[in-house]
């Protein structure tokens, strides 16, 4: 065998990726870091402020409220979408024409642009002319998502469930389809109940795709912006002002660039930390 040539030319192959990542992630992120430690009054004048903006954001009640709402929203969405998605995937047919029909139906909400989703639900739920709003009021509920915080939240969660449960369904279905028939046959011979089959065959085999589903849904729901802005604009009052909406208000509404930059960094770190937590918890005991 010929001796290996030792040089570092291969690094050039990585260079395009490095450049790409630098321009679309690292440099913008550094710009944000730059803003987060300085004060500016325009005219390209900057004054170094250290960690002042970070302290200000962390101590502000407004940020904590938005974070609390955000955590609640994400928790609700995950608690509904993951079990519901798995349940729908289990109920879907495994072969025949029904498979294609179900898959197309499931994929549809995912293909709709986010702002359109918001607009659809905005109109759908209007108390005076929307189908949902009219129907609820007709049934005797006092429903108005533009005035009552609870109604706004219910509509918001329903919209997200409608929009994104399909993703969980598709992932879970893919996981289920990968289970060989022999497992089900063995379970039948072993006299396993429906629950035992789910608990000991289907769930373990779906674990990896479910991990991806949880991570995707966590990150996406934690960053949700468009649909909420179109549906409620963060209201009534501040009741649906989630983190991203608050951030935009702070940065572009009030033009407080320093605190906004600090807030986005904190926001970013929270997502990173929670994603890591999910991943670690769900893959624990894997290597044993």
């Amino acid at each position, binding site marked *: 065998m010929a001796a290996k040539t030792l040089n570092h030319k291969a690094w050039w192959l990585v260079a395009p990726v490095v450049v790409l990542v630098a321009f679309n992630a690292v440099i913008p992120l550094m710009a944000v870091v730059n803003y987060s430690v300085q004060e500016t009054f325009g005219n390209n004048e900057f004054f170094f402020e250290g960690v002042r903006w970070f302290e200000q954001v962390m101590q502000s009640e407004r940020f904590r409220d938005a974070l609390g709402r955000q955590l609640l929203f994400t928790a609700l969405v995950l608690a509904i979408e993951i079990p519901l998605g798995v349940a729908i995937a289990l109920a879907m047919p495994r072969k025949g024409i029904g498979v294609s029909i179900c898959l197309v139906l499931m994929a549809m909400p995912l293909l709709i642009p986010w702002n359109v989703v918001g607009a659809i639900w905005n109109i759908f739920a209007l108390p005076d002319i929307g189908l949902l709003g009219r129907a609820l009021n007709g049934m005797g509920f006092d429903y108005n998502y533009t005035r009552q915080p609870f109604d706004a939240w219910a509509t918001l969660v329903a919209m997200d469930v409608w929009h994104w449960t399909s993703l969980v369904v598709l992932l879970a279905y893919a996981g289920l389809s990968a289970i*060989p028939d*022999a*497992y089900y*046959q*063995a379970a*039948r*011979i*072993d*006299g*396993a*109940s429906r629950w*035992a089959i789910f608990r*000991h*065959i289907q769930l*373990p*085999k779906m674990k990896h795709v479910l991990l991806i589903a949880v991570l995707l849904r966590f990150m996406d729901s934690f960053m949700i912006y468009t649909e909420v802005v179109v549906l409620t604009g963060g209201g009534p009052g501040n009741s649906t002002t989630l983190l991203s909406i608050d951030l935009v208000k702070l940065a572009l509404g009030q033009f407080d660039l320093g605190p906004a930059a600090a807030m986005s960094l904190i926001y970013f770190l929270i997502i990173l930390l929670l994603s890591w937590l999910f991943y670690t918890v769900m893959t624990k005991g894997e290597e*044993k």
Partner: protein
Amino acid sequence: MARILLEQVRHSYRDNPRPEVDADWALREVDLEWADGGAYALLGPSGCGKTTLLNLISGLLKPTAGRLRFDDRDVTDLEPGERNIAQVFQFPVVYDTMTVFDNLAFPLRNRGVAEGEVKRRVHEIAAMLDLEPTLGKRAAGLTADGKQKISLGRGLVRSDVAAILFDEPLTVIDPHLKWRLRSKLKELHQRVGRTMIYVTHDQTEALTFADQVVVMIEGQVVQAGTPVELFERPRHTFVGYFIGSPGMNLLPCEVDPAGVARYAGVPIETANGGPVAARGTAGKKQLQIGVRPEFVRFAERGVPVTIERVSDAGRYRIVHARHGGQEIKAVVGEGAPVPERDGHVRFEPERTQIYADGWIVEE
């Protein structure tokens, strides 16, 4: 424990199989009886219906027609879980998240067996299968042969199991472990005395494991018999060349009204010649003489042949001879003389049979 009886069992995977069209049926018509405690093999090429037959017995499939009985109980409409059948699949099936112990305990716990009894049975079976040291480990971490032992163990733990079915269980096992697992199976069969049915396309596996081998082709059983019977008196030409290495010689022949077979103008003495052959071959299209290479002898007179090559297989030699366009193989012992170039062969009459349209000619 049970005797297994299949009565005119037919199976088709189609919605509307036509009874008269053989191609519609995965299993044409099978009548079989399996004695309690026997070791059986289902042998045949891929797609011959042997796995279908196995799944019918375990209840994973319901037969299109016919009945299945365990002893005197009609089980045709029972679910697999109610049939007291265990099955080991081609690819090892273990419950990944459970320990080896829990895997083995699973079928018992599903049936509501008391935990003390579960523990006793699992330890007993684990000891039998050499799984004791791994009982506390997660099943997912075991090697393929270990997992296959767990599948087998899940069948053995149940004290009420009537039969254990194996569907090519050694396919994914490393060659050097195959032999060990196979002898383990044989040993277990003697120890637990349960009926075992073993599906395979490997004749060595079938012949070493089973007391009784059922040979299948194209959805039908062509012969069920001991390995010796299959070897000495194949009922169908397929059994002749599928079993044995090299397979049986099949020579096109004519049968005269007296029932004497002639090949190349030479009268050949056969075990089933005479009036039986005269009656049995009447009106049949394809007549053949079947003789295994082991029963072909070189002689002064007989069918003239030219020796083409001799391959040494260790304790014996395989002689490839030729008569006209027809190859005739002979297996001769190490010391036995083989003619240099031209010679004659004759066949041992007791082991030479006449076949008509593939089937042996008999009463």
